[in-house]
């Protein structure tokens, strides 16, 4: 059985050696996070940008020499550059209410397989995009890419101190947002017994 990519012993070496199973596990782990990050950036076509990102990363894999965190930083940097260079990052950040279509992309897994306390990732991405762009990106890189302040600073050309300040301000703004505060109340009100339908779970998130 393939090792998960969060077991940082030899997964990267296996991918670099051309092992298909290792790549598949790696892709499944990082692709959703890359897509969400691109959406936080306001990327108009995150699926296409993500595909181009992986293409470039695989092409250049032979030249990569680094740790697991280095790889994540590389992947997200390539994705960021692809999105920006192609002019596919929206100039205006979304300010309207969450589109109704977002409710249709909630997890399709059986509800009992989900953590009921959570909302859909798309809804979470949308709430994050209500922050100023820089703060939203810093929070996304910390949470989605799992990068520390030093790595985020290197990626964005900022100082680690500036990144920490942006992270703190972004998190504080989110924590003070009535919609975010209401999440805890919503979750607290949700029954935790099994047997809920997907429909009912979506209604809670709607």
């Amino acid at each position, binding site marked *: 059985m393939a090792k998960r990519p969060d077991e940082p012993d030899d997964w990267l070496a296996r991918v670099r050696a051309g092992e298909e199973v290792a790549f598949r596990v790696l892709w499944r782990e990082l692709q959703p996070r890359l897509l969400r990050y691109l959406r936080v950036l306001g990327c108009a076509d995150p699926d296409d940008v993500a*595909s181009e990102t992986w293409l470039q990363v695989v092409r250049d894999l032979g030249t990569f020499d680094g740790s697991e965190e280095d790889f994540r930083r590389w992947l997200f940097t390539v994705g960021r550059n692809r999105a920006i260079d192609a002019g596919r990052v929206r100039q205006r950040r979304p300010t309207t209410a969450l589109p109704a279509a977002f409710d249709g992309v909630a997890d399709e897994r059986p509800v009992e397989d989900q953590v009921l306390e959570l909302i859909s990732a798309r809804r979470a991405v949308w709430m994050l995009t209500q922050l100023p762009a820089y703060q939203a990106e810093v929070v996304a890189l910390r949470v989605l890419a799992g990068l520390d302040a030093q790595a985020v600073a290197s990626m964005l050309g900022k100082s680690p101190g500036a990144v920490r300040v942006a992270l703190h301000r972004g998190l504080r703004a989110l924590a003070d947002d009535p919609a975010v505060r209401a999440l805890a109340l919503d979750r607290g009100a949700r029954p935790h017994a099994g047997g809920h339908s997907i429909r009912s779970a979506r209604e809670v998130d709607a």
Partner: protein
Amino acid sequence: VSHDTPDDPGVTSPGLRVLLRSLARAATPAELDGEEAAVAMFRALRP
């Protein structure tokens, strides 16, 4: 990838913890739609 939330005082907010954990939650099927194409690309270009 760490699934921990950032080490910041603001993360003590219950609502924020829900938001950040949701942001990093498991993939949806739609997010994995391109898996076979990605693996085919890897197969063609792998070192």
